[in-house]
């Protein structure tokens, strides 16, 4: 990218921001910018990484894998996990259960060394508090800091660094051109 082009684009962005009427929110944030104390947020955020329940909602990013049953769940490999205490709300976990793919969760639990997930999805009669607590611990309190997610269909590895999984694909797998050639 040439300098001129870069500067041109940056200017375009600035123009866009200064154009037109300011919204109420924008006007307020300008007015109050000097008066609001800056709070320390570092401690709050450093400990915060990817919760295990995320695995229930994701699959391989490669389009061709979506139709294959073996692309779900993605497999955790070489992971480093952290436990973080989270407020336990039994009703929340119970309401969450219908959304959970049980076979997938069992696979994940084994990969992470959580042997306590029962073979069969509990129903309202078999659910008890200890089981809800176990699930709470696995799904919400366990956080993945580092490691890999591997697709069981195409073998593609997605890295997790600092709790952020990277699903960007190289050119030949993605749907849109990337910088890499």
């Amino acid at each position, binding site marked *: *990218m040439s300098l001129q082009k*870069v500067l041109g*684009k940056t200017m375009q962005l600035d123009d*866009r*921001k200064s*154009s*037109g*009427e300011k*919204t*109420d*929110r*924008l006007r*307020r*944030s300008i007015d*109050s910018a000097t008066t*609001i104390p800056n*709070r320390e*947020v570092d401690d*709050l*955020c450093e400990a*915060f*990484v*990817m*919760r295990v*329940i*995320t695995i*229930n*909602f*994701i*699959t*391989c*990013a490669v389009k061709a894998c*979506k139709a294959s049953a073996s692309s*779900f769940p993605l497999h955790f490999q070489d992971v480093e996990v952290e436990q973080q205490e*989270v*407020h336990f*709300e039994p009703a*929340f976990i119970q*309401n969450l259960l*219908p*959304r*959970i*793919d*049980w076979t997938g969760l069992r696979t994940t639990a084994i990969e992470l060394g959580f042997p306590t997930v029962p073979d069969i999805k509990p129903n309202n009669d078999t659910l008890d508090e200890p089981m809800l607590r176990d699930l709470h611990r696995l799904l919400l309190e366990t956080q993945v800091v580092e490691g890999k997610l591997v697709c069981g269909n195409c073998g593609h590895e997605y890295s997790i*660094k*600092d*709790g*952020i*999984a*990277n*699903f*960007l*694909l*190289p050119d030949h797998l*993605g*749907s*849109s*051109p990337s*910088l*890499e050639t």
Partner: protein
Amino acid sequence: MIPTPSTSHVSFDRIYEPAEDSFLLLDTISSEEESAWLCRRFSKEIDQSPLFIVEAGTGSGVVLAFAAANPKEIFGRSDVLTLGTDVNRDACKATRQTVLRAVDDKRMGYPGEDGLFSRLDLMPGVDPGESGSVLEVENAETGKETHFLASMTTDLCAPLRARNVDVLFFNPPYVPTPDMPPLPPPSTADESSSMSKWEKFERDSYLLSLTYAGGLDGMETTNRLLDAIPEVLNPWRGVAYVLLCGQNKPEMVKERICDWGGGWTAEILGADNMQAGWERLVVLRICRDGPGAASPSTVTKG
């Protein structure tokens, strides 16, 4: 008005700074009319399972944080799971900070970016004895059922499993440009410590170009997201909010969606909030309606 989440910890030389478009999204989803609509659609009496809320292209995270910190006001319930994606890894980091901070600010009663308080009893000049103790109790509950799952570096919704998303937000790169910046490669270096000043400038400019450059009609990225909607949204109760500018030809986009069939409809919201400026912003609400929509979900198999 619900406070704007604080983003003072975000560095805007490579992450999109919340602007009119971001705020129009906030105002639209929290308007009396829209939140009433959302509360009906997501009523616990219809379906008890927690909401799965996703934002694509989170940038600073201001929109996702707004939803995560105020689910009761917006959706009428506090049990929500939130997840954010962006192609810019720095934006992913910023997002989780912003979301976490907003939820905490709400609980503690700190003011938002705009100096607004969500707890009247902490507002300067208000006698704590008189203001609603109800609010205090409600705020104490904040965050107990609100869980931020993850920030992920990805193109749009690429790794999301089909038919799971209840609420999807997207404030896209919507400015018409002669060409599109390529997406970052997977190997994007994490730290820029070894970069020269010039390299850093180039890198920041590239990341900023990703925030606004929309290619033909400003729609190239938005079109790809729209195509993914029938696949990622929960077909019963899912709803997507997509911001568009005038040059994106919102009316035509709306008609195209109604032509999808299968009960998909689109509605243009927020048009009268923002008449001035060259970009005339609107919010498009996309969901499936008609028979079967918003009936008990049986989407995820067990």
